[in-house]
């Protein structure tokens, strides 16, 4: 049986620290870390090393240095041939880019694979006076950089992605480089602590001020020569030249302890181990100091490099990669020798149970007596989460699951979550991946960020598997990862466009949430226009696809895709784009190939640009429509000559289009306008223009100009029927009964005489109406006699027509006043039998 506490060291009475080996490392050729500048990313990030030319002054100085990038387990990922100026400092950003700072203040960013990403400069002053020192820190806004220039000024930017460089306040009377300095990130602000000999200053970024601080050292000191800030920016450690280590809150208000290390030289590294201890590293000694002045001393076999993490410190050596952390409470409760914590008992119980021993029951009873089963299960689950060895994890989880059986109402969510996340953690800790995340680090980092990091390492398959395993929604998971994969695919210049497009389409299919246009944009940025066009063909969202196609000058394709989408707004966007970028002729030739777009454009012109519309028809030899445009134009102008000339053009157009009818009509209109103009000249007080032919005749009739009206009728071949209608209506309305009578006798009415009766009645002249009733057609006679009130006549006609029903109708009209007639009708009816 393994002794779990073998690698534990007690710090004080209650706490334990443990060193666990994460990986054994082989750095390829036998290299010694002490010869190198090392930069390692947090959260198990990659390691970059570059030969430190301050230490090695060999003869075969090979000119430009090379930066090697390894994974956490020492597998080479890439290398960068450094070609720029002198490298001052390098570090990894929170999004795992390698940040390299040159002595002239230039900052260069590289990705994991050594590809240059971007660059910016910290300031002109840095360029002029050179950078002395540089600190790179992670804050709320991402990764920031602070530099100390040769003029002893500090410049700072909070986010390398959006580099706005600010100069901080100056420190009074600074004539030599400060003895040490550090950046503290608090909430949203980064502050710089600068120690000048024994004085400590705080530089606030927001108010540009410099505040003197007074850490209360018990022992006399000459200078603070090292400052370490804890991971969360809450705690600070100051190391003095007298060997005193002062720890306290980062605002220096609270002092935790002062510890005499008895070592006066500056430590190679001073870092916080989580938040409970500070580690100093000298040559081959690692001194861990707790907040209660307790300490542990570790002796290192080889030179190492320390990487502070939120829950411990990773130690990279020549051969191994270790993790030094405070033993988590749950773990220490269970594995501490002689522990009687519920978790420890439950673990025992579970072991006995597997041995099929009755002792299991005894242990369970012991826990149950104190009613601590639930706590026991929780402890086991927690402990499992913090363990790295799968066998230990399994053992603890088995115990938890065993214990859970006795607590039926317990929520199993944490248990499931721990099981799932442990599987993920075990997978990424694997040598092939080399991401030694601890449970707490994963909690902080979150799964989406972890996926991002896998994507950065081009471990797409693993990332997708994790998504599927954890059931991450496609939009945030698989689709997104596939998109990254596709983007990286299109970035590779050497591959064949067709092949890449096919591969991408095969893999992505019509996967929901895949944005082909984003991939295509990426392709365009890397100069693969053809590939982009091919990819865009797979994009289901026209609104994304069309603008990009236009950008790529694939106008016909953009147009047909826009039309397919049915979104006329999109079609218009293409049309206008074409109109603005092409010559008129080209535009016309292009758009006529797309009937839908063509008609949309016509509609647009009809509303906005009549001339252009006419021009379009002209181009097409569409005389009819061109003439239509002319007609529309004619109505826009008030000037008669202009209107007539427009109409003339129109009529010519109609003739060319072999539309005789419209041509004649247009000519008639011209004729009418001319007539009307003449009439207006003659009868000044009367308006005729803009009246229709019918209305013109009507007006003439009202003015009793019957001759002129008749002339117009003949000229324009007004049908007889309508003319009669019009005339009798006007005559009746104007009360010209004489003329009406004359007109009725002029010749046989083409509309019959019923309308005569009707118009008379309508204008309230029953007497006149009666005159025409006799001329009404036989079948309507009875009805009309009744209408004009000649009931006797009506009865007579009905009798003549032997129409009994009509007689009934007449009789029903006879009121009390007309008894005689009613009697008469009765006798008539009797005669008809």
């Amino acid at each position, binding site marked *: 049986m393994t002794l779990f506490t073998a690698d534990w060291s007690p710090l004080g009475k209650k706490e334990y620290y443990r060193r666990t080996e994460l990986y054994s490392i082989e750095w390829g050729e036998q290299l010694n870390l002490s010869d190198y500048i090392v930069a390692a990313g947090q959260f198990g990030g990659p390691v970059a090393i570059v030969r430190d030319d301050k230490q090695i002054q060999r003869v075969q100085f090979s000119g430009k240095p090379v930066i090697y990038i390894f994974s956490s387990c020492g597998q080479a990922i890439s290398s960068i041939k450094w070609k720029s100026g002198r490298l001052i400092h390098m570090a990894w950003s929170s999004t795992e880019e390698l940040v390299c700072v040159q002595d002239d203040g230039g900052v260069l960013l590289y990705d994991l694979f050594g590809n240059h990403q971007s660059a910016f400069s910290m300031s002109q002053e840095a360029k002029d006076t050179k950078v002395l020192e540089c600190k790179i820190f992670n804050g709320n806004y991402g990764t920031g950089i602070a530099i100390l220039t040769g003029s002893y000024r500090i410049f700072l930017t909070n986010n390398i992605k959006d580099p706005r460089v600010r100069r901080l306040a100056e420190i009074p009377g600074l004539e030599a480089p400060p003895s040490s300095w550090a950046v503290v990130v608090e909430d949203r602000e980064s502050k710089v602590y600068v120690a000048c000999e024994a004085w400590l200053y705080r530089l606030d970024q927001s108010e540009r001020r410099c505040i003197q601080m007074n850490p209360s050292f018990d022992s006399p000191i000459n200078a603070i020569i090292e400052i370490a800030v804890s991971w969360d920016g809450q705690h600070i450690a100051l190391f003095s030249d007298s060997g005193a280590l002062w720890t306290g809150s980062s605002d220096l208000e609270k002092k935790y302890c002062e510890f005499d290390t008895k070592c006066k030289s500056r430590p190679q590294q001073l870092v916080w181990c989580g938040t409970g201890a500070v580690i100093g590293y000298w040559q081959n000694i690692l001194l861990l100091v707790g907040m209660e002045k307790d300490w542990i001393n570790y002796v290192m076999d080889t030179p190492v490099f320390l990487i502070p993490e939120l829950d411990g410190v990773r130690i990279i050596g020549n051969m191994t990669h270790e993790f030094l952390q405070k033993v988590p409470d749950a773990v220490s409760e269970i594995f501490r020798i002689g522990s009687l914590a519920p978790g420890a008992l439950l673990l025992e119980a579970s072991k006995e149970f597997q041995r099929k021993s009755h002792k299991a029951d005894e242990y369970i009873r012991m826990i149950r007596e104190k009613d601590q089963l639930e706590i026991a299960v929780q402890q086991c689950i927690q402990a499992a989460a913090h363990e790295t060895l799968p066998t230990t994890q399994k053992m603890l989880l088995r115990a938890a699951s065993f214990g859970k059986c006795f607590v039926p109402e317990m929520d199993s969510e944490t248990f499931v979550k721990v099981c799932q996340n442990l599987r993920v953690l075990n997978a990424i800790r694997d040598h092939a991946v080399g991401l030694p995340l601890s449970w707490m680090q994963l909690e902080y980092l979150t799964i989406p960020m972890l996926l991002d990091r896998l994507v950065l390492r081009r471990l797409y398959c693993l990332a997708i598997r994790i998504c599927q395993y954890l059931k991450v929604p496609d939009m945030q998971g698989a689709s997104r990862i596939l998109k990254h994969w596709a983007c990286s695919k299109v970035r590779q210049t050497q591959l064949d466009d067709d092949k890449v497009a096919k591969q991408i389409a095969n893999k992505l299919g019509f996967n929901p*949430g895949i944005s082909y246009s984003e991939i295509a944009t990426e392709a365009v940025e890397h100069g693969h226009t053809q590939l982009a066009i091919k990819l865009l063909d797979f994009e289901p969202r026209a609104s994304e696809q069309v603008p990009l196609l236009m950008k790529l000058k694939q106008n016909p394709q953009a147009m047909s895709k826009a039309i*397919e989408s*049915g979104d006329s707004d999109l079609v*218009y966007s293409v049309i206008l784009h074409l109109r603005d970028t092409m010559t008129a002729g080209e535009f016309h030739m292009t758009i006529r190939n797309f*009937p839908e777009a063509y008609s949309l454009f016509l*509609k647009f012109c009809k509303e906005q640009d009549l001339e252009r519309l006419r021009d379009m028809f002209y181009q097409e030899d569409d005389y009819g429509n061109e003439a239509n445009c002319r007609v529309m134009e004619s109505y826009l102008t008030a000037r008669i000559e202009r209107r007539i000339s427009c109409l003339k053009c129109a009529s010519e157009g109609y003739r060319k289009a072999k539309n005789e009818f419209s041509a004649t*009509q247009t000519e008639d209109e011209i004729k009418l306008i001319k007539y009307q103009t003449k009439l207006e000249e003659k009868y000044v007080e009367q308006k005729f223009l803009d009246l229709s*032919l019918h209305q013109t005749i009507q007006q003439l009739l009202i003015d009793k100009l019957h001759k002129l009206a008749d002339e117009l009728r003949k000229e324009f071949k007004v049908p007889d029927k*309508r003319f009669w209608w019009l005339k009798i209506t006007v005559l009746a309305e104007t009360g010209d009964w004489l003329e009406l009578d004359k007109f009725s006798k002029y010749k046989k009415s083409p509309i019959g005489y019923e309308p005569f009766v009707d118009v008379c009645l309508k204008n309230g002249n029953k007497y006149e109406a009666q005159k025409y009733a006799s001329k009404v057609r036989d079948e309507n006679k009875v009805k009309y006699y009744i209408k004009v009130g000649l009931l006797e006549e009506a009865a007579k006609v009905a009798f003549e027509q032997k129409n009994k029903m009509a007689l009934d109708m007449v009789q029903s009209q006879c009121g009390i006043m007309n008894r005689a007639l009613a009697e008469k009708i009765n006798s008539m009816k009797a005669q008809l039998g």
Partner: protein
Amino acid sequence: MASHLSSGRVDIGQLREVGRRELLECLDKCIGTKALVWDEQLTGPFGLIAEYVLLKEHDVISMCPLRQGRLPSSDVQNIIFLVRPNLNLMDMVADCTLKEEEQRGPKKEFHIFFVPRRTLLCEKKLEERGVYGTFTDVDECALELFPVDNDVLSMELDFSFKEWIIENDMTSLYHAARALMRLQALYGFIPSICGKGKGAKLVFELMTRMRRELSDNEPQITPQIDSLVLLDRSVDLLSPLATQLTYEGLLDELYGIHNNVIKLPPEKFTKSSEGGPQEIATEPAKFLLNSAEELFAELRDKNFNAVGGLLSKKAKLLSAQFEERHGAKTIGEIKQFVDRLPHMQASKKSLATHTSMAELIKEVTDTEAFLEALQVEQEFMNGIETDKANPYIEECIARQEPIIKVLRLICMQSVTNNGLKSKLLEYYKREILQVQY
């Protein structure tokens, strides 16, 4: 006021609620007092989803229609245009904005919301007119379907048929598809869809496409609508041409029902209970017609001939109910009667209103002109003499009847005759030209 919307088989009230929220979200984007400037086409439809009180609650202190010229002066902080994406309106918007800008006084903020979506052309137009930058917000108010009744939704796009058939402009089909997608987002995906006509097919294709674009954001709702039938109007052009003969149909034919509101000549509706000299109302009497009113729900789809009988039956029933008070002996019975009283009084009022309306209709339907028109329609439908110039149509043209009436009849003739001979068509055209233009 919209509870009747929820009484149908699908809860349309839900849709109305979504519409209200959409509108209010737009309004709430502008902070402070507001004046709304309406596209006149939109006032009616928006009346279906939001009442004035609601707008008032959201700081709307004045409203006016969008017209040529200056806006009525008001001291509001925000001026909000609610418009259809129509190019001609943009000119008006630009004019109003420019004139308003000239005025002295405290600075106002301008906002424009397009219903149902903003379009490139409109934005370009505003840019051309140099007012685009003046607007704090250029956004859209994505309202596509307006709840007319518990079984009717309308997009209120008056010219969609013309746009699609004559101008070959698919915009309205696209909007229809979008509207249906939104409907489905609310009531679940409709499992079975069938349709007829080219337009229906296109709408279906667009919907399929949109669903694909939607990908996995599909709403997970159990479908409340079983099937969808898409009909292209051109499948049956005849029906809408004929005169409607139901009660509601006739009211619409004669007086026009717009967004459930009918305006009638006031004479019939002066309150008889008022003593003293009757005031002669000059404003037309306005009535809200929807299925919230029990009697109207029953009457609306009845052939007009059946309306009279039904009304008198209802009248008898009601008076019998009123008579019951004599039968009520015990206090309990009287109480029961009194409880029913408000409902009965409402019924009485509604009965009186509809009787008056029926009278109004009857006045028209009894005229010879009406019957003659009806007869012609029927002749066409029976295929009688559809190939000759129709004397009634000629007469209508000659009498300068409303052009819509004339065209409706000509169209009917054309449909029943499977198209008019060019000679006849030209004759009609000439007649109309000579008379009207």
